[in-house]
């Protein structure tokens, strides 16, 4: 049965064997063994096909058909600098961690350091990643493929009571080259009790370049920790971009994730959360904008196993001609999870008849004393609003732009950092200005 739902590509296993002895940390037996085990699991499971419900909206066919080269370290300094400048927010003068083609790039990096901060890079210290690589709790086909082939990544541990004054910027750059590249990167973040931090991650790549960027992140928040993870996805138009984020949130801790999907041909954002303490809060929000062959897939799963926790999800999508999206959000409230608050809101704006948005919020509630809501809409711009704006002098493009900006701004209006709010606005407005009819 497994075989019907899953696709195979024996080339991937062969490729692994061929490069195995040159992978990062190849000389460390424990790592080589974990990689091999992961590859075996991946080959046994196979690649989820379009008949697997969770993968209905993102076709992994390319994995079955294409041959990947593990990215090489070929570097073009001017190109790197140009991409870096587009991603880097220099008015935030915190630490910066830069990866180029899936490998750390020390020349542009300044690692986070200071009291209570342990930071490590996989290619410099594999050992630091042992816990995450050995933990197969989150095992899945793509996670295992990532684990087997991982080139680099970062690990951040924040000691109890430590508050990071400045956000950490992590920038993933992909340069132009000829082969399709596989860029498996990982991160693990451990936020100690009552610690507070923000990480801003930007993914950016050369236009016209076909590559598969796959990132697995494992995040743990101890009691009363506060962690905000902000992600800007500005990949090249032919890229395939996937992130898989696992979060575990302890008592009274707050986790927030906010993302903007602008680039790539295919994007898939997986956010999988479980609570392991009461009175904890998780806030997931994002905007995705797509047109011309682009497809964005937001897949969330929030398990409320314990009472008194809150989860909030807010996603806004704008699809223009040829753009497609899916929001599959699942909230499961276990029988004992009384006093759960869970909200899910997904609204989509179609700017063309040839655009498609799939909204699938799902609530499974087994407790009786809970407050849960979900709402999903797919609509067009309001013609009365457009006319009102135009009657005041705004031309069609400006009127549409203002309405679309207002529509997505709900996602980031509450952000407590003005620099970030402006960045979201600037990027979204830039997308609109690109190709809306004038």
């Amino acid at each position: 049965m497994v075989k019907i739902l899953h696709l195979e590509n024996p080339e991937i296993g062969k490729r692994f064997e061929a490069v195995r002895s040159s992978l990062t940390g190849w000389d460390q037996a424990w790592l080589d063994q974990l990689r091999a085990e992961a590859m075996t699991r991946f080959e046994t499971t196979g690649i989820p096909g379009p008949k697997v419900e969770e993968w209905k909206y993102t076709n992994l066919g390319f994995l079955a058909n294409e041959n990947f080269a593990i990215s090489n370290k070929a570097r073009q300094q001017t190109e790197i600098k140009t991409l870096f400048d587009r991603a880097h927010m220099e008015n935030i003068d915190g630490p910066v961690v830069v990866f180029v083609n899936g490998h750390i790039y020390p020349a542009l990096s300044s690692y986070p350091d200071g009291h209570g901060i342990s930071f490590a890079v996989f290619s410099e210290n594999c050992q630091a990643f042992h816990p995450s690589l050995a933990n197969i709790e989150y095992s899945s086909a793509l996670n295992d493929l990532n684990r087997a082939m991982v080139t680099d990544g970062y690990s951040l541990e924040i000691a109890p009571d430590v508050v990071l004054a400045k956000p950490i910027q992590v920038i993933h750059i992909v340069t132009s080259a000829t082969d399709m590249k596989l860029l498996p990167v990982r991160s693990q973040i451990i936020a100690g009790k009552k610690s507070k931090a923000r990480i801003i991650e930007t993914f950016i790549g050369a236009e016209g370049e076909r590559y598969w960027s796959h990132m697995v992140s494992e995040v743990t928040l101890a009691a009363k920790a506060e962690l905000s993870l902000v992600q800007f996805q500005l990949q090249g138009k032919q890229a395939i971009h996937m992130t898989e984020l696992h979060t575990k949130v302890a008592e009274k801790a707050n986790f927030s994730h906010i993302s903007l999907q602008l680039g790539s041909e295919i994007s898939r954002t997986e956010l999988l959360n479980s609570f392991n303490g009461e009175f904890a809060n998780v806030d997931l929000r994002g905007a995705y904008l797509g047109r011309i062959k682009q497809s964005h897939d937001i897949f969330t799963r929030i398990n409320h196993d314990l009472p008194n926790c809150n989860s909030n999800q807010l996603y806004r999508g704008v699809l223009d001609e040829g753009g497609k999206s899916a929001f599959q959000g699942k909230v499961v409230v276990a029988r004992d999870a009384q006093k759960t608050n869970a909200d899910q809101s997904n609204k989509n704006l179609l700017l063309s008849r040839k655009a498609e948005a799939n909204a699938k919020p799902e609530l499974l509630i087994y407790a009786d004393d809970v407050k849960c809501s979900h709402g999903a809409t797919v609509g067009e711009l309001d013609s009365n609003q457009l006319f009102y704006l135009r009657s005041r002098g705004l031309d069609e493009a400006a009127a549409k732009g203002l309405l679309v900006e207002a529509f997505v701004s709900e996602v980031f209006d509450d952000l407590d950092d003005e620099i970030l709010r402006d960045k979201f606005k600037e990027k979204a407005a830039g997308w609109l200005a690109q190709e809306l009819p004038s």
Partner: protein
Amino acid sequence: MLEIKNLHVTVGGKEILKGLNLTINDGEVHAIMGPNGAGKSTLSYAICGKDGYEITEGSVTYKGKDFLDMNPDERAGEGLFLGFQYPVEIPGVSNMNFLRTALNSQRCYRGDKDMAAVDFLKLIRAKAKELDMDPEMLKRPVNVGFSGGEKKRNEMVQMAVLDPNLAVLDETDSGLDIDALKIVAEGINRLRASDKAILMITHYQRLLDYVVPDYVHILADGRIVKTGDKSLALALEEKGYVGLGITEAA
């Protein structure tokens, strides 16, 4: 200023305006009254160029230019302002941002540079004050959660900032309390000038006590059926449409 000749407008497959003629000269104030459903708002939308208001016959000429050839935003750039009978709510767009974008769009259309942010702020604060609008409302999303009267007053703030040559005001007086009516009327009077013109659509004589029109027209069944001066509005107030011999199917 504005010349409308034999205007026929079809909406949703139904002919609403059936050969309407109206000429407004520089410096004049006209009032249009008429029964519900007569086509008054249809006329205002047709002047403004709203989609779905199909002009099957006739012409609308503004300062010698063919208005029917222009988009709504171009007409605004030429100096037209429409005060809506039902102002539209726009969540997520602040009043301030909306008005600044509108003003600068019009300036750009006329070949002027954007107004500097400080100057704009001064201007809008002054206009809000004139119309007794709480400056806090400028930060709120356009018309969202505004009361009926607040929405109308907001239209007047927009008019004051945009300073049009021709204002078409569709029932701007409806829903205003007595004090607000006076404030709004003063706002309209401030716009009066020898090189400007105003067309007010209203159901009530009261507004015309404050803003005295040069002409009063009665629109019924898609045409102007009677034209007079201020006394026509008084006669109408006294006798009603039927009393003046005007029925829905005139």
